[in-house]
């Protein structure tokens, strides 16, 4: 049994009246790729922000590398974040800096490396994502897939222990998709990272994930290895994996039925 790098216990979180997490428990194993899947709006990205300490839960705790994220002082949280990389859905590159400067940014902020050393390190990171020749470009000149690859290089700049991917495959053409899948898998095994991938792209995610957690309506509805999830006969899992329109997640938005609404008009 691999040791859990991240432990989430009894996590509760709401946005206004909308309950996002209703007592989530989850262990994320070190050195593996864990996919967190679920329908849109179930709080997958919110969960990543909780792990990164950007959002605070109403109750429960998130323990990363033995530290309770939401009890840390700001300086301690920042120390922990240096060991976390995050790839945002949009890339989140700083638009007024070149590709090179974007990757050099965390190195300049947190290290005292010489310019020549920074230059070498940035180019090595860019080479790993296949974009060393693009280091002079501005983010506006990159395609969506290239922007995510640059963001991956930036997330790797400080050699983190884990990387969180927020919807890495959304809106990508098949070639970019293939490149990203390959990069995530190779990066994880080459650098012995722990990867957490939030996604609802079933095929791509299932092709590289070691463990899968499916969350829906505030709870973890299924968890296990990829093979276990693929063979599961749970209605939640089948609906999500097979893309069924109706099931435990209803086709109709919950509320009054059409008959009740029509009756109001005729009264």
């Amino acid at each position: 049994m691999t040791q859990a790098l991240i432990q989430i216990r009894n996590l509760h979180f709401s946005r206004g009246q909308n309950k996002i997490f209703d007592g989530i428990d989850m262990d994320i194993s070190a050195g593996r790729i864990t996919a967190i899947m679920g329908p849109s709006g179930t709080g997958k990205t919110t969960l990543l922000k909780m792990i990164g300490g950007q959002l605070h839960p109403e109750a429960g705790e998130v323990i990363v590398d033995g530290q309770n994220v939401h009890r840390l002082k700001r300086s301690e949280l920042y120390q922990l974040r240096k060991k976390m990389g995050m790839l945002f859905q949009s890339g989140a590159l700083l638009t007024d800096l070149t590709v090179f400067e974007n990757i050099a940014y965390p190195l300049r902020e947190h290290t005292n490396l010489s310019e020549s050393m920074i230059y070498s390190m940035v180019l090595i990171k860019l080479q790993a994502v296949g974009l060393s020749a693009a280091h002079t470009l501005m983010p506006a000149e990159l395609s969506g897939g290239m922007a995510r690859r640059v963001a991956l290089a930036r997330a790797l700049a400080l050699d983190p222990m884990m990387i969180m991917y927020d919807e890495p495959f959304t809106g990508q053409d098949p070639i970019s998709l293939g490149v990203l899948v390959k990069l995530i898998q190779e990066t994880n095994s080459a650098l012995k990272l722990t990867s957490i991938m939030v996604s609802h792209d079933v095929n791509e995610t299932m092709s590289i994930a070691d463990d899968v957690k499916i969350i829906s309506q505030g709870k973890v509805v299924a968890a296990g290895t990829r093979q276990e999830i693929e063979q599961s006969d749970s209605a939640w899992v089948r609906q999500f994996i097979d893309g069924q329109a109706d099931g435990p997640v209803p086709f109709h938005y919950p509320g009054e039925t059409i008959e009740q609404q029509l009756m109001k008009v005729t009264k």
Partner: protein
Amino acid sequence: MKALTQMLTRLGRGSLFLIKILAGIPQLFLRFRLVVQQLHSVGVQTLMITLVAGLFVGMVLALQLYYTLSTFGAEDTLGMVVDLALVRELGPVVAALLFAGRAGSALTAEIGLMKATEQLSGLEMMAVDPVNRIIAPRFLAGFISMPLLAAIFSAVGILGGYSVGVDLLGVDSGAFWSQIQDKVDFYDDVLNGVIKSFVFGFIVSWIAVFEGYDCIPTSEGVSRATTRTVVHSSLAVLGMDFVLTAIMYQ
């Protein structure tokens, strides 16, 4: 009642945000390059509109005041009256309104878009405090730029007043300048105007960066925040101008 609670909550959030910005300013002296970059985009890029507006305000002032003063045979005091109006009131106030419209709105939109495109979250996750790196340099640049722009506005306005009063309407050049030298007091008039422009720079910059940072991260949210920056900071400048004038010239 709900609206009042919301307003007070935002004011509280804004005040806490200001404290965070002010706490981050000492660190900026080690990274003054960040402030210099912002001085260019906030200050230098507002220069043209300030120069043109200052020139026309000075020219119009001279035209209007000349016809009023000439009915009393007091045309020679034109320079003094134009100068007082500019350094005491119009310089700081109109420059601040232009600053809110040009630089304040740009600051809000830029910070709001950085929030909407997750750039601020990205910095947070790189263990870089966005308030120190993004917000504080912009705030400080606005605070420094505003008094300089107000001074330039007044200076250009006086030249505009001179060109209309002396060159066009025939007021004596010597009288124009000597009246200014004689009647405009450095402490009571010029310094009070400078204090006003510092206060306005502080208020407009604070509102602009807070609105950007606090906006709803959607295109509509950024657009609303930008509008609020211009409306709130213009009203704050005009209201604060009344308060400061009442204190300074009682």
